[in-house]
């Protein structure tokens, strides 16, 4: 039981006063960020990374703070999904299907409490899964050479597009755009500048934090500017809450639902490139097929809230497995978490568990602690967080924009970076209008240089022989999965993708 010993060491790291305080602060802030309409886990964490970075926190505390914000935002996201029908991110879309009808029937409090409990169970067991699976995956990952890594990156891009986007060509374009942006700057291996057009500012490349904050946070401000005063303007709608405790009978009746949601969610989370959207969609779909005998799903069935929430949170935990062990994020939010690790100078890799055990196990312990804190915060105090929804976006969005600028100014103090961020904000707005997913862009910016480095390393080893890319069974398998993951959704689009929900507009793209 190596994992348990390591985990107890992790608790020693996490259970200091400073780290506990940061975890609490993160959970609290995260829940508020998640509950605010228009902000979700990915743009919430995106705004905070530059801040945590410039505050000069050491790696472990910074990681604890930001993952608590991430988990908190996942919890908080359900508040705006259920009460306002505005999902904070894509996985939360499934929660609106039954959560909002429940709220309209005056059972909002029950839906909130049930989803809080389902989120807790989902992420609690997923964190246990992470404890036992991550070390195993590391053993597998040691079989990975540069050629296999290159194939794995391709797999992540292919499946990400396949599952989360409605148009494969647009997902591929988004990935190419991100990778293309990553190429800007001085080439790491030969030292020649690329795509910098003689601009000294571009020699260092485009900072990925600038891209993330612009694409995720600033584009949101533009979306709200565009929609002011139209039917998409969701400023002032709020149903009554009702009782805040779920009837015990409902909780008992949903044990099976939670269990299935957790298992399905965790498995979808572990698949590289799949992530939380697939987790919540699959568990809702499964539950609907198994249990929807009276056609109550979609009309306010509590199980329709419990299934996607447990699936979504279990997938969030599961998605950390490939992210930590292989450095391949599975969703928008894990991509943002990867950005956070890179900003802290930690490169996720199979060796991370050996080289930085404090970081990994401290993080896992922090996840457990954060989970209990969130349960304690959310069940009794949900009434407080609900009030957050009253903050009108006309005051919230200017603050979001200004905090984005503060964060980017803090990193570099460079006017050029801030202007580039505004450019990314506009780009994000246009891409969202055209239904081009933003997550592959971010992943391309994040992973581009590593992907190229692995390709060139493989080529150097083989002396320029391209057949080395399919030289082992492992890489052949990865390429097969990548091709299947890209093509199958085109053939079986109906079964793989959630139907476009009625009101995802303004939702944070995950």
């Amino acid at each position, binding site marked *: 039981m190596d994992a348990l010993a390591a985990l107890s060491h992790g608790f020693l790291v996490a259970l200091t006063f400073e780290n506990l305080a940061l975890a609490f602060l993160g959970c609290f802030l995260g829940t508020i960020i998640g509950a605010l309409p228009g902000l979700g886990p990915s743009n919430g964490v995106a705004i905070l990374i530059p801040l945590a970075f*410039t505050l000069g926190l050491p790696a472990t505390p910074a990681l604890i703070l930001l993952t608590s914000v991430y988990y908190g935002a996942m919890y908080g996201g359900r508040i705006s999904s259920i009460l306002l029908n505005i999902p904070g991110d894509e996985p939360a879309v499934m929660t609106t299907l039954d959560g909002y009808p429940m709220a309209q029937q005056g059972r909002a409090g029950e839906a909130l409490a049930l989803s809080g409990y389902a989120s807790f169970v989902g992420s609690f067991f997923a964190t246990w899964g992470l404890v036992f699976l991550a070390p195993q995956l590391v053993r597998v990952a040691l079989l990975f050479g540069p050629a296999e890594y290159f194939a794995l990156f391709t797999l992540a891009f292919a499946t990400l597009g396949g599952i989360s986007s409605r148009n494969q060509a647009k997902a591929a374009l988004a990935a190419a755009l991100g990778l*293309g942006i990553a190429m800007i700057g001085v080439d790491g291996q030969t030292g020649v500048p690329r795509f910098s057009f003689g601009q000294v500012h571009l020699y260092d490349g485009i900072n990925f934090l600038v891209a993330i904050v612009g694409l995720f946070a600033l584009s949101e401000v533009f979306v709200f*500017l565009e929609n002011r005063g139209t039917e998409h303007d969701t400023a002032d709608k709020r149903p009554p809450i009702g009782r805040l405790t779920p009837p015990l009978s409902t909780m008992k009746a949903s044990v099976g639902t939670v269990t299935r949601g957790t298992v399905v969610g965790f498995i979808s989370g572990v698949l590289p490139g799949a992530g939380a959207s697939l987790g919540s969609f699959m568990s809702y779909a499964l539950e609907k097929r198994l249990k929807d005998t009276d056609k109550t799903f979609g009309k306010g069935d509590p199980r329709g809230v419990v299934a996607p929430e447990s699936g979504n949170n279990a997938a969030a935990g599961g998605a950390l497995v490939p992210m930590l062990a292989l450095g391949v994020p599975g969703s928008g939010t894990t991509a943002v978490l990867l950005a956070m690790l890179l900003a802290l100078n930690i490169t996720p890799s199979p060796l991370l568990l050996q080289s930085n055990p404090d970081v990994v196990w401290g993080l896992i312990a922090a996840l457990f602690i954060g989970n209990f804190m969130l349960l304690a915060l959310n069940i009794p105090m949900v009434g407080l967080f609900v009030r957050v929804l009253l903050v009108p976006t006309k005051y919230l969005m200017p603050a979001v924009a*200004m905090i984005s600028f503060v964060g980017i100014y803090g990193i570099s103090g460079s*006017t050029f970076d801030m202007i580039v961020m505004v450019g990314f904000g506009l780009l994000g707005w246009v891409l969202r209008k*055209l239904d081009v997913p933003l997550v592959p862009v971010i992943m391309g910016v994040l992973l581009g240089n590593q*992907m190229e480095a692995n390709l060139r390393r493989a*080529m150097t080893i083989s002396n320029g022989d391209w057949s080395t890319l399919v030289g082992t069974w492992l890489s052949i398998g990865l390429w097969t999965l990548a091709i299947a993951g890209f093509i199958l959704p085109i053939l079986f689009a109906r079964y793989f993708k959630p139907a476009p929900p009625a009101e995802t507009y303004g939702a944070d793209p995950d």
Partner: protein
Amino acid sequence: MSDRIFGGLGMLLAAFYIWQATLIQESFVSDPIGPKTFPIIIGAVLGISSLVILLRPDGDPVWPAAPRFLEISMAAAVMIAYAMMLPSIGFVIPTAVVSAYLAWRLGASIPASVIAGIAISIGIYVIFHLILGLSLARGILGF
């Protein structure tokens, strides 16, 4: 139609990208595939996916009317002006002005947005600079 224009622009961008990639200076010590190959592959993927979008477009999104385009461009222009002014004028005054502008454009009344702008600016200054010690732009006035 939007998708056809978008696909066309994507193909132009891909062509420009590949052309720029071929212009990258090679240094005399290089690995077998050099600094050009991967960018050219990316350009090819960009071009092919743009072509597919051009040939098989989705339905048109709902574009805002012209005044809203102006609205968004104005907001972006104000933000760029903000970024350029920060180093010389400092943090507090430009931030108050820009957040008041954004609140006004998002539908707040003029007095309310002035108050919101001042509150946001001073709030950020107090929390991030005075309490958390983050360095903010410091202009000629020192704040």
